[in-house]
C-alpha cells in the first residue's frame, strides 16, 4: 500500500483530470490571433527581399505543421511528403495554364487532389510501419517526379511550366510580393489552427494512441485504418495547398524543386527539433531552422551546408525530444541538464 501512496509530492495536488495536458504545450486562440496580427503588421516594416524570406518561413511553418499531423501525431514517418507538395503545385499550374482556371479554384482543387491521392496510396501503404512506410512514401514521391518529367505535354517536363500571370492569358493576376506574403501567412496560420483542432478532437486522441501502440489503440475501439487515412490525406491536402500557392508565387516551376527530397527532410528536421506531436513545436522548429539556414547561407557562403549538418547533429544529440518537450520537462521537473538528455536514448 505504501507504494500506492508514494506519488511524487509535486503532482499530488493536481486534480484528477485537471486541465494540465502535459503532452500539449499550450497555445490559446488569443495567442494565435496576436501572432497573426503581428505577422501581418510586420509586413509594413520589411523590404521586398526580407518579405520574401519571411514568406518562405511562413511556407515552411505550414509545411512543418502539415507533416506533423501524419509524422508527429500519428507517428508515421512520411518521407515522401514533398510528393504532395509537388502534386499540389503541378495541379495548380496545369489547371491554371491549360484549364485557364482561376487560382482561387485551382488551390482547393490541388489540395483535394493531393488528399485524394494520399488516401488512395494510404490504403496499401499505411499498413507498413517505421522505415518501411518511410521508404514506400519516398518511392511514391520520386516516382511522381518521374511521371511529371515524362508527361511533358501537360507539365512541360524537365523544362518546367510557366503559369501565365500577366495580360489576357492570365487566369489570375500575379499577387505581388505583398499578396503572397499575406497568402502564405494566412495559409500557415490556417494550417496550424486546423492541425490544432484535429489534435484536440476525437481523431487527435486516436492518432496519439496509434502513435504509441497500434494494437492497444485498436482495442480502444479506434478504427485505425480510418484514423490513419484521415491524418495522411489531411496532411497531404494541406501540403498540396501550400504547393499550389508556392507554384503561383514562383510562376515557373521545375520538377527538381517541386519534388526535392530536401524539402521533406527540412520538414522533418523542423518538426523533430521543434517537438513532434505538439501544436507549437513545428512552428518554432520551422522559424528557427529557416532562420538558421538563411543566416548561415548569408554568413558562410561556402560552408553553410557543412555547418548546417554539424548543427543538426548537435541538436539531435542534445535535444532528441525537441525543444518544446525539453522546455516542458525543464519547467516541470526543474531539470535543465542537456547531458541528462543525451543519456535518454543512448545505448
Amino acid at each position: 500500500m505504501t507504494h500506492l501512496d508514494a506519488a511524487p509530492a509535486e503532482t499530488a495536488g493536481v486534480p484528477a483530470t485537471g486541465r494540465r495536458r502535459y503532452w500539449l504545450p499550450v497555445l490559446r486562440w488569443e495567442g494565435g490571433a496576436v501572432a497573426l496580427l503581428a505577422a501581418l503588421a510586420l509586413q509594413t516594416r520589411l523590404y521586398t527581399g526580407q518579405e520574401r524570406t519571411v514568406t518562405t518561413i511562413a511556407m515552411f511553418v505550414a509545411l512543418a505543421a502539415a507533416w506533423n499531423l501524419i509524422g508527429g501525431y500519428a507517428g508515421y514517418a512520411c518521407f515522401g511528403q514533398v510528393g504532395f507538395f509537388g502534386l499540389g503545385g503541378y495541379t495548380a499550374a496545369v489547371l491554371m495554364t491549360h484549364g485557364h482556371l482561376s487560382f482561387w479554384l485551382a488551390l482547393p482543387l490541388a489540395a483535394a487532389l493531393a488528399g485524394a491521392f494520399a488516401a488512395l496510396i494510404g490504403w496499401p501503404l499505411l499498413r507498413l510501419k517505421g522505415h518501411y512506410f518511410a521508404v514506400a512514401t519516398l518511392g511514391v514521391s520520386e516516382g511522381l517526379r518521374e511521371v511529371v518529367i515524362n508527361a511533358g505535354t501537360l507539365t512541360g517536363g524537365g523544362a518546367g511550366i510557366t503559369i501565365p500571370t500577366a495580360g489576357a492569358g492570365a487566369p489570375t493576376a500575379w499577387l505581388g510580393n505583398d499578396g503572397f506574403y499575406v497568402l502564405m501567412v494566412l495559409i500557415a496560420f490556417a494550417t496550424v489552427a486546423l492541425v490544432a483542432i484535429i489534435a484536440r478532437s476525437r481523431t487527435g486522441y486516436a492518432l496519439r494512441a496509434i502513435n504509441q501502440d497500434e494494437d492497444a489503440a485498436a482495442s480502444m475501439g479506434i478504427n485505425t485504418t480510418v484514423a490513419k487515412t484521415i491524418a495522411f490525406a489531411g496532411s497531404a491536402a494541406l501540403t498540396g495547398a501550400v504547393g499550389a500557392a508556392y507554384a503561383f508565387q514562383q510562376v515557373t516551376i521545375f520538377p527538381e524543386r517541386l519534388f526535392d527530397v530536401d524539402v521533406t527532410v527540412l520538414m522533418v528536421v523542423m518538426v523533430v527539433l521543434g517537438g513532434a506531436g505538439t501544436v507549437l513545436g513545428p512552428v518554432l522548429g520551422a522559424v528557427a531552422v529557416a532562420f538558421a539556414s538563411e543566416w548561415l547561407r548569408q554568413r558562410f557562403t561556402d560552408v553553410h551546408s557543412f555547418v548546417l549538418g554539424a548543427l543538426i547533429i548537435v541538436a539531435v544529440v542534445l535535444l532528441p525530444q525537441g525543444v518544446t518537450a525539453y522546455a516542458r520537462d525543464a519547467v516541470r521537473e526543474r531539470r535543465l541538464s542537456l547531458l541528462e538528455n543525451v543519456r535518454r536514448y543512448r545505448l
Partner: protein
Amino acid sequence: MRTRMFLTVGVVAVLSAAACGSKGEAGGGAADNGTLVIGASLSLTGKLAREGILTREGYDVCQSVVNDKGGVPVAGSRRQLVIRYQDDTSQPDTAGQLVDQFNDKGVKLLLGPYGSATTEAAAAVVERNGQVMADSSGADDAIFAKGYRQTFAVLSPATEYAASMVQAIVDLADPKVRTVAFISADDGFSKTVTRGGIAKAEQLGLTVVGEEYVPNGTTDVSGALTKIKPRRPDVIIGSVHLAEGIAIVKQAKELGVAPSGGFAETVAPPTPDFTQALGATAEGVLGSTQWTPTTAGSDKWFGFAGDYANTFAAKFNGRQPEYHGAEATAACLALVLAVEKAGSTDPVKVRGALAGLDEQTFFGPLKFDSSGQNRTKAMQVVQIQGGKPVCVWPANASEAALRWPATKAAA
C-alpha cells in the same frame, strides 16, 4: 497561463527580430563611395556547385583585372568593382529570393547565376524590380521567349550548341556523314539543344536515325546505347552534361558501339574532367563550346582570348580557363562596358547602353538582339587531340584540322 503569454510574446519577438535584423544593411549597397557594387547569386553548393564555382572564378578575374587597371570609368571618375556573392544552393526559388534581397540593398546591377533554371527564376524577378542582369550561362531560348527586357545573355543560344557541331561535321568531315543519332538529357536546356541540332541536321540533309532521352545527370546510358547500336549511325551526338557525356563514351566502348564517324557532345568535352576521366578513350571526341583561347576578337581590358587565358592561369596557379570562366568574365565585361558607355550606374541608363552595345571582345562580339540574346557570336567546335581540346571550327578560330573519322584519331 504564463506559459501561453510567454510563447505568444516569444513568437512576436522572433518575428519582430526578423524585421529589424537586417534593416541597417538595406540601401547601403550602391553608395557613391567610389565603388561599383554588382550582385551575383551563384550555385556554390548543391548539384550545380562545380559549374557555379567555375563561374565565380570568371567573375573574380573580371573584378581583379578591372580594378588593377584602375577601376570602371564612370562619368569622369573611376570606381572599384565589388562583386557580392550569395549562394542560391542550385535552387531556382532561392535564386529569385536573392535577387529580391539584392534589390533591398540597392544593388541594381546583377551578374547571372549558373544554369538555365536558376537564370530563368532570377530573370523573372529582375524584370519585376527593374534591375539589370548580364547572364553568363543561362542559354535556354525559353528564357528569352518571355519578352524580358532587363536580362542580356553574352553567350550563344542553346539551339546553337548541337547545331554548330552538325554544321562543322557537314563542312569538314571526309568521308561524308549521312546518318546521326541523338542522345539527350531530359532537362529543358538539353532538350532545346537537341531540337536545334535535329533541325539543323535535317536542314543539311542528314538522316536522324535515333533520338533517345536519358535522365538528367545519370551515369548509366547503356539503355540508350544498346537501342542505338543496331541502327549504325555515322555520328552519335550527345546533348548532355558532364556525367552523361562521360558515360556515353565510356559505355559505348564497353558495349562495342562504334559509329563510323565518331562522337560529338555539347558542354562535356571542353572541360578538363572529361579527358581526365576518360583518358585515351576521349581522343577524337568533338565538343561545342562558347569560347576557346583562339576565339577571334579583343578588347581593352583583357586583350585577345589568348591573353585572357594567360591572365586566368596566372591567377589560378597555371590552370587554363574553361569556357565557364570566360563567359562569366564576358558577362561582367558587358556590364562594365555598359556602365562606362552610360556614364552612370543608373539601371535604366545601363540597360539602354547594354541594348545598344556592339563591341569586339576576347569573347567575340558582344551585341544583343531585341530579346537579349547574343546571336552575332558563333559557337566553336573543338576536338580532343592529344589529350587536349583544340578548336577545329569555325575557320577563323581553328587551331588544327579535323581528324576524321574521329574514332580512328584515337588509334
